[in-house]
């Protein structure tokens, strides 16, 4: 618990470093969530599927209460919530599950080039198994074009999968409009809501969403649990990925982890209740950071739409400074270059490339995630720290020097290596 206390401590004492600014990778568990989970970690340890004794009933009741909270935050019915081990499993289950169930009739899926890796990899898996997949491009702001989506849907299309909010650039896709098109065309609409739930208002009925993947650890809940919303009317059917005891109405077998379910439910409750005020607070912090950096540094570019993005995300390219070197320079703040899953690799982010950024610009970006425990003091510290590191690295950068001398870097014949 010491790290947690440290994060809490920043609010009333001095700053503890490094400052966590990577809320899209994962979020610290809210102490209220931990509190709710505690009894189920210890004395209330029953298996919620044990129907023969009190231990089991007690666990089942807690799980069902959590299921209700998760349903409420997206306007669904609790019966439509399937617990999984996380958003990766939810996305795998949604894509493979629906595709395989309806494969006799339909064999085409429409998705987007900037989806999370687990959606893209699931699609690749389906392609190897004979399915057709259309990968829609995005505009410079990261959003898809609705006319392109509509044109991509054929009578063989079973499902459209478009993420609600992108994990790297935080842009919000036009969900209601996409839902309307899907409903009109009679295809299922799946959305990866891992980065959206609890951050922006969502309503599966108003938005005509048929399946939605949710992650607990992105909203201050525990790791190791997520959910898939599966619409009952009109009914969406899917082939299960993990079969066995037949839990979760046959869609996902395996003993449910009661403490994780409880923590997930509590995380949803808090997020729902605090969303309006928190969105305002985070938007103000985000704008403060962006303004602060831009006032003191030239050649700073925001990636992704400036307006249609979640309050807690910034993705900034610092031209002429390499991202990994910059990461090392901003060691007092924990941020990421690219997504957490891929930032250990040397490839520039495929999401940034999809926006039309050239590789060199994609190499100079930082993702800064602001969240529940971020304070204004921390933002101000981060501004100074980033400005200092970028300035220092630009002094070191031959590209910055050329830019200062008026040389167009693109005009140089660079060797491959």
């Amino acid at each position: 618990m010491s790290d947690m206390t440290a994060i809490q401590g920043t609010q009333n004492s001095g700053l503890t470093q490094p400052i966590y600014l990577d809320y899209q990778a994962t979020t610290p568990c809210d102490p209220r969530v931990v509190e709710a989970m505690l009894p189920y970690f210890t004395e209330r340890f029953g298996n919620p599927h044990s129907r023969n004794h009190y231990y089991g009933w007690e666990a089942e009741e807690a799980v069902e209460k959590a299921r209700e909270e998760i349903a409420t935050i997206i306007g669904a019915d609790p019966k439509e919530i399937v617990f999984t081990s996380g958003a990766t499993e939810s996305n795998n289950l949604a894509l493979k599950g629906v595709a395989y169930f309806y494969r006799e009739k339909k064999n085409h899926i429409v998705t987007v080039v900037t989806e999370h890796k687990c959606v893209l990899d699931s699609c690749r898996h389906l392609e190897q198994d004979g399915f057709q997949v259309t990968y829609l491009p995005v505009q410079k702001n990261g959003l898809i074009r609705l006319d392109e989506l509509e044109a991509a849907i054929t009578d063989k299309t079973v499902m459209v999968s478009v993420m609600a909010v992108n994990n790297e650039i935080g842009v919000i896709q036009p969900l209601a409009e996409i839902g309307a098109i899907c409903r009109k065309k009679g295809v299922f609409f799946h959305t990866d809501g891992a980065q959206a739930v609890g951050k922006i208002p969502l309503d599966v009925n108003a938005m005509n969403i048929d399946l939605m993947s949710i992650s607990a650890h992105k909203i201050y809940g525990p790791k190791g649990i997520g959910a898939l919303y599966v619409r009952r009317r009109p009914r969406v059917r899917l082939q299960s990925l993990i079969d066995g005891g037949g839990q979760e109405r046959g869609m996902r077998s395996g003993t449910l982890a009661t403490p994780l379910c409880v923590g997930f439910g509590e995380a949803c409750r808090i997020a729902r209740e605090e969303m309006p005020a928190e969105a305002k607070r985070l938007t103000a912090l985000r704008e403060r950071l962006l303004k602060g950096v831009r006032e003191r540094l030239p050649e700073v570019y925001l990636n992704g739409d400036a307006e249609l993005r979640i309050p807690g995300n910034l993705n900034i390219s610092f031209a002429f400074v390499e991202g990994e070197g910059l990461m090392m320079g901003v060691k007092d703040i924990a941020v990421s270059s690219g997504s957490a899953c891929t930032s250990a690799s040397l490839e520039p982010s495929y999401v940034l490339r999809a926006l039309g950024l050239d590789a060199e610009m994609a190499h100079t970006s930082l993702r800064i995630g602001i969240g529940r425990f971020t304070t204004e003091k921390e933002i101000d510290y981060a501004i100074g720290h980033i400005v200092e590191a970028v300035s220092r690295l630009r002094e070191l950068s031959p590209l910055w020097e050329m830019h200062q001398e008026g040389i167009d870097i693109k005009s140089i014949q660079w060797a491959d290596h």
Partner: protein
Amino acid sequence: MTSLAAYLDYNATAPVRACASEAALRAMGVPGNPSSVHAFGRAARGLVEEARETVAALLEADPRGVIFTSGGTEANALAITGWNRRRFLASAIEHPSVLKARPGETVGVLRSGVIDLAALERALAADSEPALVAVMLANNETGVVQPIAEVVRLARAHGALVHCDAVQAVGKTSVDIGALGVDSLALSAHKLGGPTGVGALLLADPDAELRPLLAGGGQEGRRRSGTENLPGIAGFGAAAQAVMAETDEAGRLARLRDRLEKAAGEQAPGLVVIGAGAPRLPNTACLAVRGVSAQTLLMGLDLAGVAVSTGSACSSGKVAPSHVLTAMGEDDLAGSAIRVSLGWASEEQDVDCFLEAFGSMIQRLGAGDRQARVA
């Protein structure tokens, strides 16, 4: 509900060990994603790798062969769909997570509850296509331990791979993946006093090729995508550590279980201990009193605060008779069988509690039966 007198359903789930819940809670205070490269991410990664080494040590395995999953069910699914084998053979008494993982052929068991090795050999020889064979180390309902070394020997002779569901065995008896000779082995943390929501698949050859079940970020050596369940994994590691620190736990459990069975047999002279003729886990007692409904027994025991179960927890809400007992040819006993399972926190007084409740139930039911006959 009044306070609970005795929890004797360890094969469904075990109470979480204090060291495991503490480790899980500590891990919950680490706000990083193990895939992140910054200090928080590295701290999280450190916890995952430490737990991986402990879990590997418990099974005498190579840490690189440990793939953390969301539990035993996923571990079984990953192995059974992941091994590149077109043919799949499983014993008839496997857990549903094995039997339903993919279509395949089943191999029966003898009345003792032990796999019919001759039938396995015939099945292996019937087709030249090399198979994947799944046989559990110990059955969840009866505790009967399977002759894995023999299974492996037969499988190898026919070029087959062997997956072993060791979910029930680990923590109750010592398991060594190398000695068993299997290719993969499934584990669940909550069965050994770790948290729920986490398990592992162990590969004997850490470099073996396995098709992933969950595609995505490429975690767990590209074999299992998804952000690691950090608290769960840390708790799993702590529970594994606690198991390794135990001395003669199997002997202690066997003494408790044997006393329970002996005394229960004296209370109910017609008591049948299912699987008693075979090697069994030291903690499991599958008991049936002919003519007495298991549901009636369960309800009475529950009212007395004693938690036991029928069959596996996953299916105990259903009315279908246990596929395990049916496979053993014990159809007539299937409706009477209750499972009493002990574990790390079980003590003499739990056994006493059970015996007190069981004894009075048997007496009452005996009276009830006579009245029923008169009516």
